[in-house]
Structure formats: C-alpha cells, structure tokens
C-alpha cells in the first residue's frame, strides 16, 4: 500500500500516566505549534485534486447534466455524475436516502451533483463551473411545522424509509405516554421555545486522500468519527467488498458529530478508481458549512402542571425538529429529544410527541448533546417559569422533583446507578458567588461589550441562573454497540512494550491517552504504543454519544486482561504459583505483594497478543404506538445516564443588550475520572459550546440557503466571551461500567445553554424564549 507522505501515524504519540493520573494529551502541543498533520495536510506527489459541484437550489428536478465542456478542459481527468456510481447510488447512517450524486432531484442547497478530478484544485473548480445542469426549480419546503401538514408537498416523493409509514414528511414520530396526562393541577404553566440551528464549527474542514490499490480496491486516509461506518457506505456505493476498501484515520481537526456522516469519502474513492491516481479533496470553509449536518433547530410547546408544593403532576411536550433533506441520524436524535423532554425529574404522567421532519433545509444530524440540548432549553425554561408561578426558589423546585437512583424515566426505564441530580444542584448553588462588579473602577474586559468600550457600568445588571440536564451514554434502543481492541505484549530491545490497536477515532477528546493509561495500568508496563486507527481491526463504533472511553476503553481493558491471563498461564506452565497474581512494574506480583517473576524474562522472544470485543449491556427499542391501549413509547432504551448542572452569573447591559458572563459553576458526575485533566477540559469545552448556542451561534437559513457560511459571520465565542469556570467533578462510580466511568463529553453542553438564558432572564425580567438570545431580545426592541 502506498502511504501519503504526511500521513503520520495519527494517535501513536506516546502518552504517559496511569489511570487516574493527570496526563497531558500528546497531540496537544503539536496542534498548538502547527506541527500536527491534519487530514487537509495529506500529500502524494502524483495526486490529483477532487472538487464537488453543488446544487444552488434547495429543491429542483434535475432534467439533464452536460459534462462535455468540463471534461474537455485541459488538466481535467474525470468528471463523474450519478451514472458513474457503480454500487448503491444512495447512502446513509441509518436510512440510505441520500444520493451519492444527485439523481433526478436535488433536495437542499449545496447537495453534490457532480465531481471533477484535475491536476490543480483551481482547474477542477473552473471545470466544475462549466458543467451545465438543467434544473426545474421547485418551491422549497422550508418550514418544519408546515411540512407536517398532510397537504404539504413531499421532500421525498417515494418514501425511502420505514420509520413512520404514511407520515408524509414526518421522518419519525416518537410518542411517549405514561400515567394519566389528562389530570388537572393547581398551577399550570405553558411555554413555547425555539432553538436555532447550531454548527459544530470544527476547525479542520472535511478532507481526505483516496489511493487506488493494485488489487482493484482503494485506501482512504480520512478524518472521521467512525471508520467502519464509512467503510460500509463507501464499499456499498463502489460496489466492492468491504475488504477492498481500507480506511486509515488521518489527523482530525475536531468533530462534535459533524463527521459521523459521509461527506467526500465516496467521492474521493470514485475519482481515485476512475483516474487510477491518488485523489485529494479538501472543502473550503464555506463548502464545509454545506458539507456536514448541523444541530437540529427545534420548536417546542410545553405544559407543566404542579401541586402548590411544587410536585410535578404532569408534563406535556411537543417538540418538532427540522431534519432537513436527508435522514442522517435524525431518527435517533428525535428519540433522544422525546426521552429527555421532561428533564431529570420525577413525573408520573407524561405525554410527549417528538417529530422529526424532512424539509429542503440543510440536513441535520449528530451534534454534541444529540437531541437533549434542545429539550433541555425547553424543560429548564419551564422549571424557571413554574418556580416563578409558585413563588418557590427555582433550585429548590428542581431539587424537590429531582430524579434519583430508582426513579422512572418517562419511558418507564428505571434509572440505575447514581443519579445525583439534587446533589449537583446543591453544589452549584452552594458554591461561593463571585464578587459584585466594582463600581469605582472598571476593567473593560470584565464588562459587557468587552474592550469595545460600550459601558463603564452604566445599564449593567447582574443575573444568576441555574439549569440541570442529562442524556444517555452510548447507543440506545437495542443497537448492538461495541468496540474491538487488540493488545500485544512483547520485549523490544530488552524492554517490555505493550501495543494497543483499535479503530477508534481520536478527534481531540483524549482517547489515545486513556487507552495508553489503561494498558499501562492493567499490564504494569511503562512503554505503551497506540497503533494507528484503521479498518484492519474490527469496528470500534463511533466517537460519539460520549461512548468511546466506555466502549473502546472497555475493549482495551478486556484485551489487557486476556493478555495478562496469557502471561499468568505461561508462568503457571513454568511451575510458578500465580494464584491471584497481577502485573505491576514489569513483574508478576503475587496476591501478598511479592514479586514472582519478571515479565520480560518470562516472555523472552515470545509475544502475547489478544483481541477482544466489548459489548455494552443490551438496551431495548421503545415500544411503538400500535394503537394498543396502555402506556406507549416505553422501554429500557438507554445504557447509562450522565448528569450535569450549571450556575451562570451574568452581567447584562440591559440598554445595549450585551452580555458578559462573570462566572460559570458546574458540577458533573463522571463516575471515575480516568484522566482528570481531560475531564475538566471536556467540561470547559462543552460548557463553552453551550454558551455559544445561548448567545451567538446560529446558522441562519433563509429560503433553504445558509446566509452565514463563514467564521466571519457565524460567530463562536472567543476567549473574551468565555468566563472563568469552577468545575466540580464527582466520581460516584457506575457498577456496570468499565472502571465505574460515566461518559463525560456531552452533559456540559446540555445544561449550560439554559443556565445562561436563566441568568439573562434574572437580569432583564424578559421571557427570552429563543436561543441564541440576540441583543434586541434583551433590550426588547
């Protein structure tokens, strides 16, 4: 196999430390200094460049495509359309409804229509511009609530899915009914809430390099979250067996869900096989906004009924998510939104309807928080509103209703293991508050508007807000979610070395560190090498759903245990007593702590290597509405729940509508912090992403077109927008999980958004029912 010159063995940088140690990520410094090789840096001397022609219309019939002029351009080697896709012309994570290249209709602005390979990217772009596509432009369907109407035109004329037969544009409708939601209550509050479309805003655009192989297959170097799910889809569309499509992870510049779907993977491979040359594709920033899915925008209607003492009597919720043109992971996102719609509270009577719609907007799919983010803004806004109606402190109201171990989810699932909702809330409430803003002197950086010098304290009011949220870890609803790890122990140059191989994607979260920490601890070796992630080993599942340390960590642990058993068996075969022994500091150590033998001496030239899969406990699909009486949408659909709470202190310039967050306090149960530094990093980063959604991050889509596809116009928080954070980490241990850990990555993103808005409401007295909150919402103008 030929390997691109800049394909560094990603993830092989050696991390140090054992489980529980504070350990720096080995890729951190190269990323900061610019030495890290990202997928966009991939290079081969004889490579060609691939470019994509995209639809300028959100909805149009494709009458014809004329590639003649493009193909005749000097320097152009191939121009391909749907006719050139040898295998499946459609792909998708769950539902294969997305054309590799548009067939007869385009369904969103930016949909790929044709691809071009040339010796220079600019040549390829110019040639793409010469492709003549005859479109019959149709009125786009862009309003998700209107799309629900049975009279609405259909985004997909022939339904390509079986999730909600006969539902028109409704891709999935999740109904949850438990108890008696027709009850009446002393106090009732209703509310409507909207969430805008957020982008994952990773910095490394979609990119990869496809290299044709001598066996008629292809090797793809790619930044992705899940090598094997890409492999399956690429192979299906190329019409090749999976073993002829080999993927290796290239340097990933952030993911957050946006790399779960295929972007240029199939295109690059098609061009490589057609031209018999390596093909590099790199999206521009603007193209990247069209090249990946986003967080679903939501409109939500809530009704909460409670007794005078604050006890929730019932909750009704309707959440409508705009899925855009193709399914992506939407069916799972809406299931999550419905599951978590009530929040981490006890309530016996629930009526929840979650809808996800096909529209001609950009496709939406996975993003950190995965459906729980939208509803958390809804339920937490409602809890604040209910507290005000009851005259109860909002934190006390939450604690009064807080879920705990043994509580029931709206789906009837029993919450197992620690569910410290009340404790998390108490901790953030009891943390000392920051000092009041000084009135005599001012530091512009600490004021709303920052160094823009908009206020010296005039018009500034302080508000404090709280929120708590939760979500599932791992894949749900009966999915066989697992990972594979191979661990080898041998002596190299007189030293004991463990090698860990998985297909798990390191996307910046620190998995390679954790894998090395596990091997180092379990096998008692100093030197651990992570082999590059690729598809020569079984799947690791996706780097998403906060699951990779749980699943791949679990697989590495299991493989290490098998290797250890192999070593002990060798020792035993040589007559050593190894009853209850462990491996520590390169030695076999007996139960009483005495060293029995040196592992290196024992191994000599031999190698012990084991491969193990780790499957997490099975989950079950939600029962479907089959017209049967009784509770519906029930089932133990989720593996594990992860909880976080936030307190936000905000200074708000109520005259100009500008915000300065003074401080964020957060508490989260992580079960066990394998690398405490990464845990805090995840919590800070996740919290910041939630702050972005609360205050500025929104993809503005009008008439099916993204209006701000650049980081000049799509704003993400800068360091000046990011306040100091007090992070409290609880380690309550989940008995079912490897090392007792609980997924960390997503919970902080979920509750930070509503906590920010709650603080803004406290400062302004305004209802603020939409995120992101804009200056004019704060000033009410």
């Amino acid at each position, binding site marked *: 196999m030929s390997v691109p010159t800049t394909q560094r063995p990603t993830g092989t940088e050696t991390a140090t430390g054992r489980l529980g140690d504070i350990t720096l990520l080995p890729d951190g410094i190269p990323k900061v200094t610019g030495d890290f090789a990202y997928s966009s840096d991939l290079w081969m001397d004889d490579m060609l460049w691939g470019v994509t022609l995209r639809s*300028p219309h959100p909805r149009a019939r494709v009458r014809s495509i004329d590639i003649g002029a493009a193909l005749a351009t000097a320097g152009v080697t191939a121009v391909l359309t749907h006719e050139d896709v040898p295998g499946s012309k459609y792909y998708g994570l769950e539902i294969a409804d997305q054309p590799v290249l548009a067939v007869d209709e385009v369904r969103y602005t930016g949909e790929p229509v044709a691809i071009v390979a040339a010796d220079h990217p*600019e040549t390829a*772009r*110019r040639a793409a511009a010469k492709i003549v596509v005859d479109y019959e432009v149709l009125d786009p369907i862009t309003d998700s609530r209107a799309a629900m109407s049975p009279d609405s035109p259909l985004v997909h004329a022939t339904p390509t899915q079986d999730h909600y037969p006969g539902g028109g544009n409704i891709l999935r409708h999740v109904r949850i009914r438990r108890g008696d939601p027709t009850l009446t209550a002393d106090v009732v509050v209703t509310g409507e809430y909207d969430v805008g479309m957020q982008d994952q805003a990773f910095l490394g655009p979609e990119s990869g390099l496809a290299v044709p192989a001598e066996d008629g297959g292809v090797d793809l170097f790619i930044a992705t979250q899940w090598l094997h799910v890409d492999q399956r889809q690429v192979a299906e569309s190329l019409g090749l067996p999976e073993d002829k499509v080999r993927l290796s992870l290239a340097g990933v510049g952030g993911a957050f869900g946006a790399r779960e779907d295929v972007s240029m993977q199939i295109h690059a491979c098609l061009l490589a096989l057609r031209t018999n040359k390596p093909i590099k594709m790199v999206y*521009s920033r*603007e193209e990247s906004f069209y090249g990946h899915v986003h967080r679903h925008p939501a409109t939500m209607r809530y009704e909460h009924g409670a007794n005078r003492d604050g006890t929730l009597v019932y909750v009704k919720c309707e959440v409508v998510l705009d899925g855009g043109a193709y399914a992506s992971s939407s069916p799972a996102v809406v299931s999550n939104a419905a599951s978590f719609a009530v929040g981490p509270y006890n309530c016996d009577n629930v009526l929840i309807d979650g809808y996800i719609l096909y529209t001609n907007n950009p496709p939406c799919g996975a993003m950190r928080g995965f459906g729980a983010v939208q509803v958390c803004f809804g339920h937490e806004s409602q809890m604040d509103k209910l507290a005000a109606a009851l005259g109860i402190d909002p934190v006390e109201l939450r604690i009064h209703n807080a879920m705990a171990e043994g509580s029931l989810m709206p789906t009837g699932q029993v919450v197992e293991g620690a569910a410290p909702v009340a404790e998390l809330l108490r901790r953030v409430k009891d943390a000392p508050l920051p000092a009041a803003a000084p009135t005599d002197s001012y530091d512009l*950086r600490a004021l709303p*508007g*920052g*160094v*823009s*010098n*908009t*206020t*010296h304290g*005039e*018009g500034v009011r302080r508000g404090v807000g709280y929120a708590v949220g939760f979500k599932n870890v791992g894949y749900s609803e009966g999915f066989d979610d697992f990972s594979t790890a191979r661990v080898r122990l041998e002596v190299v140059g007189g030293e004991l070395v463990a090698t860990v191989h998985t297909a798990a994607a390191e996307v910046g979260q620190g998995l390679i560190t954790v894998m090395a920490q596990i091997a180092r601890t379990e096998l008692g070796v100093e030197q651990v090498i992570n082999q590059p992630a690729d598809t020569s080993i079984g799947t690791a599942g996706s780097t998403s759903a906060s699951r990779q340390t749980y699943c791949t960590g679990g697989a590495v642990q299991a493989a290490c245990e098998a290797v250890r058993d192999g070593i002990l068996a060798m020792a035993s075969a040589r007559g050593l007593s190894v009853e209850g022994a462990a491996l520590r500091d390169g030695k076999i150590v007996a139960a009483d702590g005495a060293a029995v033998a040196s592992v290196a001496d024992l191994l000599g030239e031999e190698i012990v290597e084991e491969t193990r899969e780790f499957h997490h406990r099975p989950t079950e699909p939600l029962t479907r509405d089959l017209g049967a009486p009784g509770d519906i949408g029930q089932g133990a659909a989720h593996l594990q729940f992860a909880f976080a709470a936030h307190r936000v202190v905000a200074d708000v310039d109520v*005259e*100009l*509508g*500008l915000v*300065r967050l003074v401080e964020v306090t957060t508490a989260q149960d992580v079960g066990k912090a394998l690398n405490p530094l990464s845990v805090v990093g995840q919590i800070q980063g996740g919290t910041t992403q939630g702050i972005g959604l609360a*205050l*500025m991050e929104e993809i*503005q889509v*009008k008439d099916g*077109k993204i*209006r*701000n596809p*650049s980081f*000049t*116009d799509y*704003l993400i*928080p*800068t360091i*000046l*927008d990011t306040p100091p954070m007090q992070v409290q980490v609880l380690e309550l241990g989940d008995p079912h999980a490897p090392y007792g850990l609980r997924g960390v990555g997503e919970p902080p993103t979920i509750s930070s958004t509503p906590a920010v808005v709650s603080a803004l409401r406290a400062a302004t007295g305004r209802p603020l029912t939409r995120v992101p909150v*804009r*200056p*004019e919402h704060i*000033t009410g*103008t």
Partner: protein
Amino acid sequence: MRQFGYERPEYAADAVALAERPEVRYLAGGTNLVDLMKLGVETPDLLVDVSALPYEFVQEDLDGLVRIGAGVRNSDLAAHALIRSRYPVLAQAVLAGASGQLRNMATVGGNLLQRTRCVYFQDVSKPCNKRMPGSGCPARKGDHHNLAILGASDQCIATNPSDMAVALTALDAVVHVQDHAGPHEVPLAELYRLPGSDPQRETTLAPGALITAVDLPTLPFARRSRYRKARERASYSFAIGSVAAALDVEGDVVRDVRLAFGAVAPVPWRARTAEAALVGGPVNEEAFRAAAEAELAAAEPLRDNAYKVPLITNLVVRTLAELAAGS
C-alpha cells in the same frame, strides 16, 4: 474564481495607468477583496498590488496636520503615538475592528473601501441592486438585522461596515486621491455616496482612483474623544451600532462636538443634526438624549433592525457623558 493577472508597481502614476479599465482592482491587504473574489462577487482580471507604493507613513506637518499614508496597516495606525494621543477615537475604532491578524494585513485605503456585509451582496445566486443594478433588493423583506435605519433608499439598505471610517468622519478627515486627472483632495464626508437610485456607486471616486493618504485636521479637543461599539461577541466581529464622539466643554456649556454613527447607514453617518442641537446647550444626559433623538427622528427602521434606534441613543448618551465627566 476568475483567472487574473498581477502587477506590483512602485509609482502611483503606473498604478493609476494600470487601473483605468473597470476590470482592474487595487490589492492592498486583501482581507476583503480576496474573500469577495472567492465568493465570485468581485471578478477582476488584473490585480494591482499597492503594497510597493510609498504610502506607509504617519507624518505631522508644521501646522499640526497629521497625514496618514493609505498603505499604513491598521495595527500600526492604532499603535501610533500621535494617533493615540491626539485622536484616541481613531485608535479605539481601529482596535475595535476585526482581529489582530487581520489588522496586521488591512490598510487604511482598503479599510475605507471595504464593501458591505449584506448577505445578499455576498451571495451571487441572489438578486442585489448593488451588485447587479436593477435586480432588486431582497434584504428589505429578508435579512436586514444589521442593515440601515438612516440614509437608505428603496433600492438599497446596506450599511458601511467600517469602524475606522466612523472615527475619520467625526474628525473631518480629508482623503488624498490620485486618478487620471492627477492628484486631488476629497473631504471624507464627500467620498461616500448615499445609495439613492444607483446603489452600485458607493463613492464619488473616478474609476481607477487611487487613495494615497488621509489628512486629519488639527482638532485640539479630539484629545478627548471616544469610540464605543456594540457587537454580538466580545471581540472579532462587526458592529451592530457604534458611536464616535469628541466633546469640547466650557463651563457647563457644549462649545463644540463631533459625532458620527456606525453600522446604521450606507455611509459612516455624521450626526450633524445632533451636533447642532448640542452646541451651545447644557452638558447633561437629557440634552445628550434629546440630541440623539433629534438625529434619529429621521430613522426608518425595518422589521428586524428597530433595535438600533435605542441602541444608538443609549451609546450616544453614555459616550458623551463619559467625555463630559472627563473634562
């Protein structure tokens, strides 16, 4: 992107000669032009790089007049001791714009002639009277959250995005231009045009005109001047409203004042009505507010940009109050 040629002349006359045809653009820092070329909004066939021209200076003449070369980088301008001490409003306005990296590239000339951020202007698949005269203005009914409340026309409601130009407008800056007719001077207030019925013409410059320098008249009370800018995050984003002000107070009477608004009009908006209302009047918040309201009485807010009216009013009151308190 259209294929283009590239020249880097050393003399202004050569640059002007090269730029006579409408398909030619001057390239300074490139921070706006190159983005627009990538988007297909600008399609020059020749770029004339002005970075070799001798315009990277900030000088003071014997009368105290300060001349700034068109090639001075935004970072250097903001850091210059003369500017910081004499015209703090200008240094603050420049520093409030863009980011450190961009300011290191961006120049005075390029900053003055940067184009509007209107999303339809930047999207070649949409109609836009400024880009394609007569094609229509989708912003009026569509996305106009950050577009004009003052000085707009039926044809165009775009805003000028520059922070620097707001400060220069308040300071009565004069622009030096060289074109086919030779060198001449234009007061900044006369450089920019309101859109009227031909929004594609943004300036009064002749085709191919080269900006060579900007003069700042001596304005002693500008030592007490301020720029305040509201934006949607703490740094690195365009204004949604801004105010440049200089105030001269004698006793409890306003002797003189300069006031300009940003992000509210197709041009940096000199608030002459407000200035007239203030001069000779009392130094208090009511007077400041009344003056702002007088200026904004002409505002024609649209569905989604009415917030700018109170925003600017509040900024004016605060900025003038701060200047008054400091005097």
